[in-house]
């Protein structure tokens, strides 16, 4: 999915394009570019990476331009493959969203006629076709060119020494924004909603001309047509969140889909990485924040399933630790792939002679250049600052890595691996069922309102989940909360328990269940309100004030489901406290400072 935007008018096109592209970042953000027409011809700047990689100071101030932002699902983003594209002369530039099915044939033709291509994209043929068939009028030429194209497209084109933008649409979204003395075009309304709320939606086969003072639209029969002016009633925020009140809630609900996508083609083993060729006698997982909790789950999984000694460390600590004789296989986890400490840790691990693997959600992010191997989580773009679906898919990757390593060490039987993979295949379904019980969780969240301190406890695989649950609540509900291994309560935190400190106790029926019941009994004797999350059990029900059960799965897979409960618990608590859920104070989505 890509986003495009165009502007012609009286104001500085640079600002409008960059802001508009920013609004379209939800459509993807792994390369971006702009083209502006000025007196000295067409200026193009395009970069792989996020929009902020563009050097705004370098971009000239003119009154007309087009821009593009992209999210690669397959294939590598690069400067060359980024939009906009120009023709051989540099007099025409285009941006395109969609897929041209017959581009190979058209490209061969153009090459035979002497056109030189700079990229491997289907999109670049459009600028060369415009050059080849140019008849003195850009929009006329575009009409000729779109007749040759098969596939889906939204196209914006501009030409030097002109204030006109020519656009075309077929099966890819394109909307025109109407201003006074200026006009806009974009893939989606949010890109232009800062400037106008009057839009015209183009229909399939339409070609249009935008000048600062008019918009003319022709249909596929080349008849001049009027499209209705639609007044947009909603705000930018509504548009991007697709019906949900917050990105965080949207992303929590996207988890079944994200898990499904992250497992696709991988349940028979990774094809992109061969862990078998590395020395994996000892493994170290390194990361920050929420990703660190995924790493901790990974540590337990790798130890349980593959029986390989494993440590999980914080990137900001590892960097300054002393090297040892050992050269553990090092796995770095970062959602954005831009976390400064994790990138520095990757460099440090390499310097120490370790082989490195990154687990990240963003293609071509900085960390991918620092490591030997990369696994992508395929969770899709995440906007909410509090990580939800990306954590879940990181944990899914931990299962897959542990299973692969288990088969390698032969500590995991093939038939057990098959069972585990069959269980993973059903996780999206279980999460969906759990999300249907949101109302129960919302009701329980009431119990957390008014508390100044909240404790989260769990054992074994669910200890990291307790940490993550506490972090989510801190981040978005601004309530002091702390996660502990349940066995550690007695060693200090117990002193703080009163009837005003709710305790969220994770208790699934694994080998620690009896011990957990004991711990919960002790907590109950301090009169602390207890919210138990886990499996159904009469004893547990008696001891706790509330019990939120998760669908029954083998306990090895419980962390994913328990965590979804804790996400919703944090969300609804923050919601009731009227916190800024998607943009918590003092926090940034990707921490690029050390």
């Amino acid at each position, binding site marked *: 999915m890509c986003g495009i935007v165009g502007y012609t008018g009286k104001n500085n096109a640079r600002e409008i394009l960059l802001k508009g592209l920013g609004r379209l970042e939800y459509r993807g953000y792994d390369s971006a570019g702009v083209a502006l027409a000025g007196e000295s011809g067409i200026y193009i700047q395009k970069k792989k990476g996020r929009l902020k990689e563009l050097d705004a100071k370098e971009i000239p101030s003119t009154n007309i331009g087009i821009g593009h932002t992209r999210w690669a699902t397959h294939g590598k983003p690069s400067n060359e493959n980024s939009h906009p594209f120009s023709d051989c002369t540099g007099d025409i530039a285009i941006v395109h969203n969609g897929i041209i099915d017959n581009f190979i044939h058209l490209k061969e033709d153009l090459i035979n006629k002497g056109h030189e291509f700079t990229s491997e994209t289907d999109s670049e043929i459009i600028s060369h076709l415009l050059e080849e068939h140019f008849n003195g009028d850009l929009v006329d030429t575009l009409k000729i060119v779109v007749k040759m194209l098969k596939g889906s497209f939204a196209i914006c084109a501009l030409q030097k020494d002109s204030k006109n933008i020519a656009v075309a649409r077929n099966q890819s979204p394109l909307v025109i924004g109407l201003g006074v003395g200026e006009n806009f075009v974009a893939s989606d309304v949010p890109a232009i909603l800062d400037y106008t709320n009057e839009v015209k939606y183009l229909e399939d086969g339409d070609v249009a001309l935008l000048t600062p003072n008019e918009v003319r639209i022709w249909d596929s029969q080349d008849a001049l047509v009027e499209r209705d002016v639609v007044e947009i009633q909603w705000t930018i925020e509504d548009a991007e969140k*697709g*019906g*949900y009140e917050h990105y965080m809630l949207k992303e929590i609900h996207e988890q079944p889909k994200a898990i499904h996508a992250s*497992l696709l*083609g991988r*349940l028979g083993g990774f094809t992109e990485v061969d862990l078998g060729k590395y020395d994996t006698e000892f493994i170290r997982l390194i990361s920050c924040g929420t990703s660190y909790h995924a790493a901790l789950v990974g540590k337990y999984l790798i130890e349980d399933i593959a029986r390989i000694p494993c440590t999980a460390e914080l990137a900001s600590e590892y960097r300054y630790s002393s090297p040892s004789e050992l050269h553990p296989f090092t796995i770095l986890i970062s959602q954005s792939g831009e976390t400064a400490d994790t990138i520095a840790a990757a460099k440090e691990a390499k310097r120490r002679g370790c082989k490195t693997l990154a687990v990240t959600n963003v293609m071509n992010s900085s960390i991918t250049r620092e490591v030997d191997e990369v696994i992508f989580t395929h969770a899709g773009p995440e906007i909410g600052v509090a990580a939800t679906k990306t954590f879940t898919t990181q944990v899914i990757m931990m299962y897959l890595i542990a299973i692969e390593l288990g088969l390698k060490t032969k500590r995991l039987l093939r038939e057990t691996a098959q069972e585990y993979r069959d269980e993973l*295949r*059903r996780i*999206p*379904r279980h999460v969906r069922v759990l999300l249907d019980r949101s109302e129960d969780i919302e009701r329980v969240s009431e119990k957390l309102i008014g508390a100044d301190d909240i404790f989260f406890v769990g054992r074994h695989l669910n200890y990291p989940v307790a940490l993550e649950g506490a972090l989510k609540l801190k981040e978005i509900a601004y309530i002091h909360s702390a996660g502990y291994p349940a066995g550690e309560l007695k060693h200090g935190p117990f002193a703080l328990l009163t009837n005003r400190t709710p305790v969220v106790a994770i208790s699934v029926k694994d080998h620690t269940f009896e011990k957990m019941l004991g711990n919960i009994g002790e907590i109950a004797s301090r009169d602390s309100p207890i919210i138990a999350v886990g499996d159904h059990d009469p004893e547990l029900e008696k001891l706790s004030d509330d019990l939120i059960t998760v669908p029954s799965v083998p306990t090895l897979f419980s962390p994913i489901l328990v965590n979804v409960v804790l996400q919703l618990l944090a969300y609804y608590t923050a919601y009731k406290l009227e916190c800024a859920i998607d943009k918590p104070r003092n926090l940034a989505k990707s921490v690029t400072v050390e």
Partner: protein
Amino acid sequence: MKAVILAAGEGRRLRPFTSSEPKVMIPVANKPILQYVVEALVSNDIHDIIMVVGYHQEKIKSFFGDGDEFDARISYIEQPKQLGTAHALYQARNSVEENFIVLPGDNLVSTDTIDDLVNEGKTSSVLITTSDEPSKYGVVSMENGIVEDIAEKPEHSISHHISTGIYYLSRDVFSRIEQLMADNTYDLTSVLNSLKDIRELNGIHTESMWMDAVYPWDLLSLNSAALHELATANRGMVEKGVIIKGPVSIGEGSVIKGGAYIEGPAIIGEGCEIGPHTCILPSSSIGNDCTVGAHTIICNSIVMDGARIGYKSILESSIIGEGVSIGAGFVSHTDVVDIIIEGHLERVENIGCMVAEDTTMGGGVTCYPGVIIGDRCDIRTGSLLRDNVLPGSSVR
């Protein structure tokens, strides 16, 4: 032009398959019924869609979002209480322009169906089709293209013409709805029937696809009709020695193990594992993330997302809900069955079993023809199921 899709009802007669999602979201050929409606509108260049939602509306909203993915612009209006179709349409009164299309979200339609209505271009029209079982629907009597009467589910029907519930209307209808709602009449058929006196309602006949699932077993014919449009596509991993005949679509990340025999039309979703020597026969749909054990036979059936079927099972003319887990050696027998439903006898040809979501079964379970098993049941190994099982039951 805008279209209003009525998608607020549960579809009670399809229970237990509506326990956590409305009828419009039940998949046939791996797509919710409502998606066929949206796609038919979009391919007729109707991109502005208003969905009136109610029962489990979050399922609809999270699937369709703002419609971007479907090349539509979808907005949602809530019908808090599902009083009737006219009341549902009335909720959308501030969102439509002069003329608009109204259609139910739970009927399978094609591009041509909508085209038949739009092409006539007469406002105040109802699309009419023929049915073998007219008494289940609104039976229409017509003269010279003008509707004389619509009789809702008559005991003795005099015509095979039935209303599809698809209308092309103008804003005038809202004042009429107001009048009838004042008399506690909330269904659209009655509202439009009141137009017959002034001979204003045009009947437009269509031969294009229009199918309704009244009872659960009807889903199988919708599934088989939707599969007729299927194009062959293989985005999964097919091992050596698999035989594929006819149109078969295999989704990304799915693995088909050696020795499997697949005869289309059949669709297999994403991320599935189809075991060795399985046999998948025509008119079968298998959803995403399903596991099918070795030597299992699936024929003319719907298997929904996340289901697991054990080794050496036989699944014929059956419907398996989301997340159902079935042990090895399961058998569904098929036959012609007389099912008593809503106080009358319904003869169903060639039906197997219908199992609703998240039910788990041990090994060696056998189902009699026409048996309906509720959601979240726990059926122990070796059970012989002769009768329907209520949701949440335990069978030992």
